[in-house]
Structures are given as structure tokens and as C-alpha cells.
């Protein structure tokens, strides 16, 4: 139990943020509310990154996810809003949601059992990795993946633009 004393009380707050936000994101009937839940969860995860003394990743999380990805999802909601009101209502059959709960709970519990039983000993928090060191790593051993991710991003953006233009030609 003495190992648990190393945990910061803010961990509980972030865990509550993650669970409540995630529940809203998955269960809310309105997609805009689900997106708000997702944003709360993203902030909770960013807080956990800060707790682990990884501020660079925490701010990247807020910049990329909260700044870019949620805006994209919001555009998706806005541009596909159908005339019959809120889309994404959860009036499905009970059996379907039961199967969903079963699948999620089973895989999560199996993984949790593995995690609890076989987790290696944690070491005290290491000193924070400096930005310069991260940059050296990104241009050294990670150079290929860094270039590849830029190519993937470019191809995805170009493909999205291409898909968007196709309709006008067909019209």
C-alpha cells in the first residue's frame, strides 16, 4: 500500500473526468453532447500526461486532439445533420447493447487481469525528458517514421479533398 502513496490526489480527479466524459461520449443520444464528453475525456488524459511529467505530450494532446480532431468531428456532425433531428439515437434493440456490453466487459476484464497479474515493478518518476532530447530522437532514430507520418497525413488530406470534389463532377 505504501506504493500507492506516491500517487497524486489529482489522479482521482482526472480519472473521474475520463470516466464521466467517456460515458457521455458513448451513451449520449445527441452527437454534439457525445463530442463534448469526448473533449472532457481528452482533457482528463492530458492531465494524466502532466501527472507523469510529460508536458510536451500533454500540450500536443490539447493542440492536436482538442484543437484539430474535435473540430473535424464537429464539422462531420454539422455537415451530415439530417432534417429529422438528432442523428445517432440509441433506440436499438436490447440484445445488441447487451452484446456490446458483453464484448467490451469481457475483453477489458481479460486485459485487466493480465495487467494486474504481470505488471513489472514501477520505478519512481524519472526526470522529465527535455524537448531537445525529444527533437534529437525524432530526427535520429525516429526519422523514418517522422517522414512516413508526414506522407500519411499528406495522402489523407489529398484523398479527402479528392473525395470531396468527386461529387461536383458527377453532378
Amino acid at each position, binding site marked *: 500500500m505504501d506504493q500507492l502513496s506516491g500517487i497524486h490526489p489529482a489522479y482521482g480527479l482526472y480519472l473521474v473526468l475520463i470516466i464521466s466524459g467517456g460515458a457521455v461520449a458513448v451513451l449520449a443520444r445527441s452527437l454534439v453532447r457525445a463530442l463534448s464528453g469526448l473533449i472532457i475525456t481528452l482533457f482528463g488524459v492530458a492531465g494524466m500526461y502532466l501527472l507523469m511529467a510529460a508536458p510536451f505530450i500533454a500540450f500536443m494532446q490539447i493542440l492536436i486532439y482538442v484543437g484539430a480532431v474535435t473540430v473535424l468531428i464537429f464539422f462531420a456532425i454539422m455537415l451530415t445533420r439530417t432534417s429529422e433531428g438528432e442523428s445517432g439515437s440509441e433506440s436499438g434493440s436490447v440484445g445488441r447493447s447487451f452484446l456490446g456490453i458483453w464484448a467490451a466487459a469481457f475483453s477489458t476484464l481479460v486485459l485487466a487481469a493480465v495487467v494486474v497479474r504481470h505488471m513489472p515493478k514501477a520505478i519512481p518518476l524519472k526526470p522529465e*525528458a527535455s524537448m531537445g532530447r525529444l527533437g534529437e530522437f525524432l530526427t535520429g532514430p525516429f526519422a523514418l517514421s517522422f517522414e512516413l507520418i508526414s506522407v500519411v*497525413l499528406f495522402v489523407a488530406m489529398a484523398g479527402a*479533398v479528392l473525395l470531396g470534389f468527386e461529387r461536383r463532377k458527377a453532378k
Partner: protein
Amino acid sequence: MNYLVLYHLAALILFGLGLYGITCRKSLVGMLISVELMLNGAGLALVASSRLTPALDELGQLGTLLVMGLAAAEATLVLAIILIVSRRFGTTEIADIATLKG
């Protein structure tokens, strides 16, 4: 139980919520939101594993950064696909997106 386990359990909660969302959501946008939840869980697990074990620190942090880049690319592409689907079928409910009956 140590705090490494606690962070991994938080990541697992995100994974479970995302999996439930993917199976039960009725619209494509809802499924996209669930996928983002699962990707966040993966990033949290990566950073926790690299920060709290003797493993190399930069490995996990930069891996998470790459996951974020992939998530951004994936969200862009899925947005385009959702737009095409909603134009062609007039809806993004997955039950209605079918050209074959059966």
C-alpha cells in the same frame, strides 16, 4: 498494485468504453468518436509504460505523438467518407447504409 497499474487500468477503461461505443453506436460519427476514445487509451498506456519503467523515455512519448498524427489523418479521411456516404444515402445511420437487401 502500483501506480503503473493504475494508469494502465485508466487506459483499459478508455478501451472498454470505446469498444462498447463501436459495437452499439448507430451512426458513423458516433463510431468515429469511439475510435478516438480507444486511440487515447493506447496513447495513455504507451506513455505510462515508458515513463514509469526503466524503458527509454522518448520511445513512448514519440510513439504517442505518432499515434496522435495517425488519429488526425484518420479523422480527416473518415470525415470525407462520412460526407460521401451522407450524400449518397441521405443518412449516416449504419442500419440504412445498404444497397443490397437481406
